């Protein structure tokens, strides 16, 4: 009578630490293998892609420095998002908060293009942080006020942010001497972040990101506020019982995520880009979601996953040039990586039970 028996997922008595550590590696391997098959199917040499994506970024000082450059914003945004994700507040709109950070930071050089002084880039970073925070606060306000879903609100606000960027660059903030291109004036020297590694584009925002990672570790692992957020995420009823404010958790989660994304946006315009452009929105805000989960929502794990994701960015660019990989393939790889990780992480608290009895059962039935 039972014709086909599927294995069942059973909850483990205790979370498995080995699987927790192994999950990202297994996910990377599974995603890599399945994508290599895919590349072979579309007629691209999979080994050339593999070399270009994962080996080539480490073969020269310059390409490695580009990995470090990409890792900075991913690390910053993911640390902020992870704090909210642990509290089950899903800020999916880091991209929009990133754009607002870039816009706010650009306001100073746009309105004072001749400004100079050591105060310039630090105040741009602060203003950018504020911009991301304010943009995220819109989401927090409606979630608390009307219980509007923060996933939808933050995501849709990202598209609003893009249109705001378009408006500014096509209208009031367009560089008058820019041949009608949709971009702002080039920033003065003091508006640019100091370079960290000579001869490369790597700037001190990487140090800021690492400092934020350390701060995130203390916040999530040692602080009472971090503890309250964690309880709220794991067991909302326990948080209510303890008297931890749910609204407070929503505000803190979204504001931290927004501030980190805004800081990353400011560091982008005052770092490698050097002006406000439409192309600053390259999907860091979305990739950082993958980075946060791939790092197990843990500040240390995120440091590693940010570098991995940065490698894949640079490697993907390489593969497009040297192996003729289509541009969408990089996104497909990122997506399959997240999917494989989510599958793998399921087994930290659950295990498969195969129906051993399936065969004996058939025999025994009269």
């Amino acid at each position, binding site marked *: 009578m039972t014709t086909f028996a599927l294995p069942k997922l059973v909850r483990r008595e205790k979370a498995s630490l080995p699987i927790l550590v192994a999950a990202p590696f297994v996910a990377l391997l599974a995603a890599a293998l399945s994508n290599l098959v895919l590349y072979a199917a579309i007629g691209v040499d999979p080994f050339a892609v593999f070399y270009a994506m994962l080996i080539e970024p480490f073969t020269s000082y310059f390409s490695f420095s580009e990995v470090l450059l990409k890792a900075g914003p991913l690390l910053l945004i993911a640390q902020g998002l992870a704090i909210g994700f642990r509290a089950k507040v899903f800020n999916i709109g880091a991209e929009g908060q990133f754009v607002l950070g870039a816009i706010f930071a650009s306001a100073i050089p746009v309105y004072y293009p001749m400004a100079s002084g050591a105060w310039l880039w630090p105040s741009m970073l602060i203003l950018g942080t504020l911009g991301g925070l304010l943009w995220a606060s819109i989401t927090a306000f409606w979630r608390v006020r009307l219980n509007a879903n923060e996933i939808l609100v933050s995501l849709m606000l990202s598209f609003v942010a893009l249109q705001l960027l378009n408006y500014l660059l096509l209208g009031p903030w367009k560089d008058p001497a820019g041949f009608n291109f949709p971009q702002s004036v080039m920033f003065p020297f003091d508006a640019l972040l100091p370079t960290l590694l000579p001869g490369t584009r790597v700037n001190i925002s990487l140090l800021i990101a690492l400092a934020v990672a350390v701060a995130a570790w203390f916040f999530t692992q040692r602080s*009472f506020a971090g503890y309250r957020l964690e309880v709220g995420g794991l067991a909302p009823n326990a948080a209510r019982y303890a008297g931890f404010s749910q609204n407070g958790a929503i505000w803190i989660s979204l504001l931290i995520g927004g501030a980190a994304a805004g800081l990353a946006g400011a560091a982008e315009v005052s770092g490698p880009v050097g002006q406000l452009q439409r192309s600053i929105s390259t999907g860091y805000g979305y990739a950082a979601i993958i980075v946060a989960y791939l790092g197990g929502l843990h500040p240390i794990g995120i440091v590693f996953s940010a570098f991995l994701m940065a490698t894949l960015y640079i490697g993907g660019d390489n593969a497009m040039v040297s192996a003729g990989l289509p541009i969408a393939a990089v996104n497909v790889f990122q997506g399959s990586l997240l999917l494989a990780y989510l599958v793998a992480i399921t087994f930290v608290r659950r295990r498969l039970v195969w129906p051993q009895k399936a065969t004996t059962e058939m025999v025994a039935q009269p």
Partner: protein
Amino acid sequence: MAEPLLSLRGVTKIYGPVHANSGVDLDVEPGAIHAILGENGAGKSTLMKLIYGVDTPDEGDIYWRGERFEVTSPAAARKLGVGMVFQHFSLFETLTVVENVSLLVPGSKRELTSRIKQLGTEFGLEVDPLAYVHALSVGERQRVEIIRCLLADPKLLILDEPTSVLPPQSVELLFDTLRRLAATGVSILFISHKLEEIRSICTHATILRGGKVTGNVTPKDFDAHQLATMMIGRNMPDPAPAKEVEKGPLLLDVAHVSLPSEDPFGVSLEDVSLEVRGGEILGIAGVSGNGQSELAAVISGETMLPRAADGRLSMMGTDVRTMGPAARRGFGFAFVPEDRLGQGAVPQLSLTKNSILTAHSKGMVARGMIRGGRATEFTRTCIADNDVRTPGASAEAGSLSGGNLQKFIIGRELMLEPKLLFLNQPTWGVDIGAATAIRKRLIELRNAGCAILVISEELEELFELSDHMQVLHDGRLSGRFKTSETEPEDIGRAMIGAEEAAQ
């Protein structure tokens, strides 16, 4: 001796490190009312799951009328003639009785309606087939579940703790039904830990302890104390004597509090009044689902009263209507919630981190950072003082058994040295040994001058513990009964709302 209807030989079931059942032998005779007696975690539910085909045994055989059978699914069990009434009902509240029945039993609605009526008169299971389930009392819902099983014409009916949801009057009706059923030759497996009930109705009893059969007895030949000793394997601890204590100040004062429910299936509280003084235990009796969760949330502060609400709610003399749980704790209030996993404790976090949940004000937080040493020390003390069986303070709360986790939670709340302690279902699902220890602690605390409020479904427990009782029915609270001058029947009448009807 007649050939047994159902026999188990050497049945073993292992879940991970736990031997839920090991080498269980069981014989159920036709027409017997057979009790499976055991503490929580003794393996009663596992055994029933094996018989009903929810799970399959790792070792051992099941015989049905002498023939070996593999019961691979509940459908196969029903085909054999096994029916089961679960502790938690599986009825759709928005459908009528007959609609619910027709989901599982074939036949036209008219046919089913007349059969439901017929079974009702035959076995004392009167229920209106066309009534909506949400309008039925718990006792009536249980009747619907039983009728649904009976329509399949079972030879064996399994009832999992059927009386835990019933007021005393309904228990008698249920027993009457079971006796009538047994008289027609149906065997009944009756799972319970309530000894007096088993003595009054069961013809056989199989006692389980730690997954093994420790006795097969005729319950009428033993008294409750002897049965309990067999069940827990040692002598029952004596209850602490309740001293005459000078009544202290009024520490909890609730007057005329009403709160409409936001949930369409929730219960609205209407004009609730109660007071608890130092050195007094007030018990709130009632069948679950009559507003217990709502009342608990109002007292704990998880639900705050609207600013404009009428009525009074004060603790230690301070108006706390608009204060949250943390603020109320600041006045010396402590609360043990009904739900251990997910409310009283976070399952995925260590015991140490669970201590911080409510005891963070005990020096565990300094300048916004957690002082791990203080929290661990607190947790170790709590584990040692309350006989919590666990590998240590770093064990995940979810890995503890229900009774041990409850001991931890109660211990944690007592270490807050409360002036006013509120417990919701303190011994629900806790084994008899631990439950007795908990009650003893509460009475000691009362003798020391603490004000205690207890919500419980177990009448026996309330009679043992409380100085006064009030009954919650349909969101309304009855007047005060003095326990020493009250009979269980008086409480029972209030539990089903008969009191109000008479007035």
